[in-house]
């Protein structure tokens, strides 16, 4: 609040100069209208509003004057006796501008009432304050102001604010100067008042801040560089407007009416409208400043009346000017007015010492008519060779020129040809000029075709967007080119630009030289002739554009051809314009196109290097380096991130990795759509794309569609990326390239070139130079292999350590290869016991529960029973008593956890299972034979000893063979091979290697167990021997009763403390060497079975026989069996010997068996 309103008596504000003011007369001011106000309306105010208001303000708030508000503001104006009436109109403006309040509006709400009070107080205060001094002038003069301003500047200088001081002084001097110039007594700001103004400003001044210093700098800057005057009205704008609309037409018709003053009067009126004449000063009130500034005479540029002046002054109409123009035209060789400084009219005779006589002389000799017929030049206009070179340089950049012109749609396709209207060179004959220019036309054609190709590719890539999915879709539909081709087009474009800038640079050099501006080092020995230009071109670029054109044509022909055959060399294909080919939809798979392009490029590098054309090879190599970046980038992504992993069925642990990156259609790795949980995923899920065509279009079966420089490392790349992806899936990912920076392909090339340069001792060479494909392959291999190995190594470690690969492998070998002798023997013995008693042994629950029981009774936990599932899939009808083939149906599945399923997949487990079945079959036969006892008691039965000896001999033969075979399989095949495999597996560095080793291992096992297709005859023979054992057992039982005994059945007793009644019953039929021991050991058994005390039964029983053959038949049968067995064993021996005679690794193993079988004859 103002002092007046709070205290009731006015306290005049203290001035900055601190001089005390005389007591104001305003103290005598009658009190405000407050006493006559009605009671405050505050009582009806809503309490909420009142409560939030600060009490001080509320208490001091004057009562509302709403009801008795004076009708006019003037009525409450203090009756300031001395106030100058001239000042009064400014008060509201000042208050509005400074305080931000506006005059009260009738019917305002409570808010405005408050403002109204403020407004009135402010009005009172201002009028009181100013009326006190009214028109009294303090009387400072200009000298005082000068001193004060100088003082300010000096102070600023001391404070190191030179700019500000300078700005102040400059502004001050400008002001003084300006006001001095105003001699007019009516000026708005009078010189006499200037000190007052300045004093006023100085009193309000504040110490310089950074903003003010910045203002000072800006001010000085503005003085130095005044802004350009605003754009003036031009005829163009006037014409563009609607006819007769707009301000600028305002005076036209008046002028036409002939009133000289009308224009002025219009202006005058307009200005009068702008300036409020009510106020003394045009800039006084809000908004006025703008209208005034728009009338700044400096900014207003009246349109001069040029009508006649233009005609008088137009220099184009003067003769001298015309002459000058004509002379200049004569100096311009491209104009018809060009006048050569060589006399070409043909009057000069041929002079062998003056080359400029050659052309005209030849023409003269050939005659006008003949000359016109010669292809090429028909008009006789001579230009200098320098200009011809310049024209050729322009033409090479694909621009319009005098010497060569673009002819589209010719028989040989579009091309540049020497222009028929081209000017001639005096020192060349028609033929030689045509020949030279044709050579340039060929180069220009090549370059132009490439330009058009680049243009089309860029256009297509612009039309079809590159968003993920869409880009691939377009590429698939052939509407858009592959990314590599786009990169290639860009690389070609870079080369073209280099070419263009070279041409432009050469032209610049020539022009500079012609004007004598030759910078140091440049233009030395510059020769501006067509032949030197041709040589320089060849030296600079070699055949690079020709090669690129050829490459592009081959690639585009191949891409757009429907058949996978190599591009045809037909004339039609060769003359089809390249840009037409580039616009056609592509037909080949993107990856093939990419591989083909890169291979062709590299092939060209190699060809040119071998021919010693280093310049061309370097150029093509640069293009190759840029084109390959796309594939290189994918290789990087592949190695850093691996494949996309998304397997919703795998649960929370396997969601990682899938960030939407798919394998690009163009990349050489193909996604075959297997889920990561599929056991075949690792081998089949992601593979290298196949492509049956090599670089030269030759058919090559099994060839992968991998760029040739990546072929060496492709398998490792595939494996490394897959390892990385799997690690991501297992959420074990870490930076594979920790400490390594992925470099772009070009950097790699440059680095190798530099290293190569150092090695050769000729210093590092800048840029990319050509590298032979072999060296490139090695370079890439060395660069990529560490990434692959890191990923593979990490995965191998994870498999071994976190996935417990060795534990699972051990369990599998224990089960399938029966390396866990005791437990697996117990298991098969249980099975055999079931078989012997002709019970149903293949029951699913029996198999699984037996196995689980055996595993659980073991002291050492060697396998998790939950991972093992046994089943029988064979034909239930085939009797185990007749053939061991019945065991074929036994299947054990081992469910290795992910990701070991890749290693122990279904196929591997199947092979393991077949080996297990083979082992069980042999053991079955062996157990049957072992149960046959031939004891002295048999002799007591009255039989001939020789007869029994025959049985005994037969049993021995069978046992010998089966034992030999089993011994060989267990010792020389399984044990040896497993040891070797483990040794190899420990050294394996990648999952792929592990899988490969495992597969090889299984193949070897299978082969040596004679389970492969090529040994199926031997396998059948072995099966026959095994079946024969069963048959022999049956015969023997039929002959001698059940004299069988299986000592191994004891193991069953040992496995379970509790013996069932059934087992006891079985045991009663057993006579064995272990019987007494067992009985002794079981003495403490409290079982009170009545059978327990029965005497041991005889070891054979006649009643057990089910074979009711005549006794004579036994011996016939034995004879038959004997001879058959002999034949079978010899067959097997021969087969094994032939296998042992091979050159492969298995030969050694079979040699052992062959050696063992040699004993058969002894």
């Amino acid at each position: 609040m103002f002092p007046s309103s709070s205290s009731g008596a006015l306290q005049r504000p203290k001035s900055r100069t601190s001089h005390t003011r005389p007591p104001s007369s305003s103290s005598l001011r009658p009190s405000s209208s407050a006493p006559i106000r009605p009671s405050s309306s505050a009582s009806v105010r809503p309490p909420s509003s009142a409560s939030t208001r600060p009490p001080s303000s509320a208490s001091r708030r004057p009562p509302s004057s709403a009801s008795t508000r004076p009708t006019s503001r003037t009525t409450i104006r203090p009756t300031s006796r001395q106030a100058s009436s001239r000042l009064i109109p400014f008060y509201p403006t000042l208050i509005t501008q400074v305080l931000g309040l506006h005059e009260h509006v009738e019917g305002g709400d409570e808010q405005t009432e408050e403002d109204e009070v403020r407004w009135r107080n402010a009005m009172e205060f201002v009028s009181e304050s100013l009326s006190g001094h009214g028109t009294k002038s303090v009387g400072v003069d200009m000298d005082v102001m000068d001193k004060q301003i100088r003082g300010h500047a000096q102070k600023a200088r001391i404070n190191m604010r030179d700019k500000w001081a300078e700005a102040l002084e400059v502004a001050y001097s400008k002001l003084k100067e300006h006001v001095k110039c105003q001699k007019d007594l009516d000026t708005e700001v009078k010189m006499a008042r200037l000190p007052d103004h300045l004093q006023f400003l100085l009193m309000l001044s504040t110490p310089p801040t950074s903003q003010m210093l910045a203002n000072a700098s800006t001010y000085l800057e503005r003085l130095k560089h005044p802004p350009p005057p605003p754009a003036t009205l031009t005829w163009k704008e006037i014409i563009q407007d609607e006819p007769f609309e707009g301000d600028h037409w305002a005076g036209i018709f008046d002028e036409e009416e002939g009133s000289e003053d009308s224009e002025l009067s219009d202006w005058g009126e307009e200005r009068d409208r702008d300036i409020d004449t009510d106020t003394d000063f045009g800039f006084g009130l809000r908004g006025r400043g703008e209208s005034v500034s728009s009338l700044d005479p400096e900014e207003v540029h009246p349109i001069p009346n040029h009508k006649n002046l233009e005609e008088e002054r137009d220099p184009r109409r003067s003769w001298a000017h015309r002459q000058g123009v004509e002379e200049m035209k004569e100096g311009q060789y491209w104009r018809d007015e060009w006048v050569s400084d060589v006399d070409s009219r043909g009057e000069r005779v041929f002079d062998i010492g003056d080359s400029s006589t050659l052309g005209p002389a030849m023409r003269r000799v050939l005659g006008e008519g003949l000359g016109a017929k010669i292809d090429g030049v028909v008009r006789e206009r001579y230009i200098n060779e320098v200009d011809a070179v310049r024209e050729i340089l322009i033409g090479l950049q694909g621009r319009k020129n005098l010497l060569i012109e673009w002819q589209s749609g010719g028989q040989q396709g579009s091309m540049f040809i020497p222009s028929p209207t081209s000017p001639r060179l005096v020192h060349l004959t028609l033929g030689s000029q045509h020949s030279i220019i044709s050579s340039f036309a060929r180069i220009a054609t090549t370059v132009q075709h490439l330009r058009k190709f680049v243009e089309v590719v860029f256009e297509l890539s612009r039309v079809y967007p590159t968003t993920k999915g869409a880009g691939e879709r377009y590429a698939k539909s052939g509407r858009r080119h592959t990314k590599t081709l786009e990169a290639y087009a860009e690389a070609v474009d870079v080369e073209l630009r280099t070419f263009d800038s070279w041409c432009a640079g050469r032209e610049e050099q020539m022009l500079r030289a012609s004007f004598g501006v030759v910078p140091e080092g440049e233009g030395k020995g510059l020769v501006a002739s067509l032949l030197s230009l041709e040589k320089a071109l060849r030296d600079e670029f070699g055949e690079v554009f020709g090669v690129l054109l050829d490459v592009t044509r081959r690639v585009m022909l191949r891409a757009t051809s429907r058949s996978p055959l190599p591009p045809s060399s037909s004339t039609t294909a060769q003359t089809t314009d390249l840009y037409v080919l580039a616009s056609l939809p592509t037909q080949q798979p993107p990856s093939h196109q990419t591989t083909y392009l890169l291979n062709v490029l590299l092939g060209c590098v190699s060809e040119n290097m071998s021919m010693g054309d280093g310049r061309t090879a370097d150029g093509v190599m640069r293009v190759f380096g840029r084109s390959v970046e796309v594939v290189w980038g994918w290789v990087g992504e592949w190695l850093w991130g691996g494949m996309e992993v998304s397997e919703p069925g795998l649960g929370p642990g396997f969601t990682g990795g899938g960030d939407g990156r798919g394998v690009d259609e163009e990349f050489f790795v193909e996604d075959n759509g297997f889920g990561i949980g599929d056991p075949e995923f690792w081998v089949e899920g992601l593979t290298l794309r196949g492509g049956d065509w090599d670089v030269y279009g030759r058919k090559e079966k099994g060839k992968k569609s991998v760029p040739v420089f990546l072929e060496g490392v492709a398998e490792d790349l595939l494996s490394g990326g897959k390892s990385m992806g799997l690690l991501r899936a297992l959420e074990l990912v870490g930076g594979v390239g920790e400490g390594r920076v992925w470099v772009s392909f070009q950097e790699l090339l440059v680095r190798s070139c530099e290293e190569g340069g150092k090695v050769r001792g000729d210093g590092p060479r800048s840029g990319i130079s050509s590298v032979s494909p072999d060296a490139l392959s090695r370079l890439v291999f060395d660069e990529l292999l560490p990434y692959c190995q890191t990923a593979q190594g990490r995965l191998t470690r994870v498999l071994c350590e976190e996935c417990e690969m060795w534990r699972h492998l051990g369990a599998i070998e224990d089960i399938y290869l029966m390396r866990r002798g005791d437990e697996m023997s117990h298991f098969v013995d249980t099975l055999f016991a079931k078989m012997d008693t002709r019970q149903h042994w293949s029951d699913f629950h029996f198999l699984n529960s037996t196995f689980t029981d055996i595993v659980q009774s073991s002291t050492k936990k060697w396998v998790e029973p939950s991972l093992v599932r046994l089943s029988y899939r064979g034909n239930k009808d085939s009797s185990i008593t007749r053939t061991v083939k019945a065991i074929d149906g036994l299947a054990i599945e081992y469910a290795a956890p992910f990701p070991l399923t890749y290693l122990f997949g279904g196929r591997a487990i199947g092979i393991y299972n077949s080996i297990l079945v083979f082992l069980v079959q042999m053991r079955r036969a062996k157990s049957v034979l072992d149960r046959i006892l031939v004891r002295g008691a048999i002799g007591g039965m009255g039989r001939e000893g020789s007869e029994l000896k025959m049985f005994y001999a037969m049993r021995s033969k069978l046992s010998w063979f089966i034992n030999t075979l089993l011994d060989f399989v267990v010792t020389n095949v399984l044990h040896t091979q497993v040891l070797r495999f483990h040794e190899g597996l420990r050294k394996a560095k990648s999952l792929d290697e592990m899988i490969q080793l495992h597969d090889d291992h299984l193949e070897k096992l299978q082969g040596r167990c004679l389970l492969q297709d090529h040994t199926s005859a031997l396998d059948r023979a072995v099966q026959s021997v095994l079946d024969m054992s069963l048959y022999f057992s049956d015969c023997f039982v039929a002959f001698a009763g059940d004299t069988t005994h299986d000592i191994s059945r004891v193991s069953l007793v040992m496995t379970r403390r509790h013996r069932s009644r059934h087992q006891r019953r079985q045991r009663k039929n057993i006579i064995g060497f272990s019987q007494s021991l067992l009985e002794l050991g079981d003495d403490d058994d409290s079982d009170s079975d009545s059978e327990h005390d029965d005497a041991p039964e005889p070891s054979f029983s006649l009643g057990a026989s089910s074979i009711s053959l005549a006794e004579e038949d036994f011996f016939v049968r034995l004879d038959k069996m004997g001879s058959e067995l002999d034949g079978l064993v010899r067959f097997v021996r021969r087969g094994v010997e032939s296998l042992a005679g091979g050159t492969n690794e298995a030969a050694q193993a079979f040699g052992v068996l062959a050696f063992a079988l040699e004993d058969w004859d002894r």
Partner: protein
Amino acid sequence: MSSREADRLSAAQQTLDLLHDISQLLGTQLDKETLATCVSMIESGANPEALAAVIQELRRERTSINAQSPANGR
């Protein structure tokens, strides 16, 4: 309007511009319009010291109004 009048106005405008420049340099925090009002008032005979004091007082009042407004929840 006569050209003389226009000249007069443009001269006034220039003077005002120059004064505004100085005002800016001195950091008076007066905008062009307020300066124009003040110049007019001084030309009309207002005491520059008193005017400066009034402006300072009005600014103080404005600050207090602004401080009060948020407190009142406006």
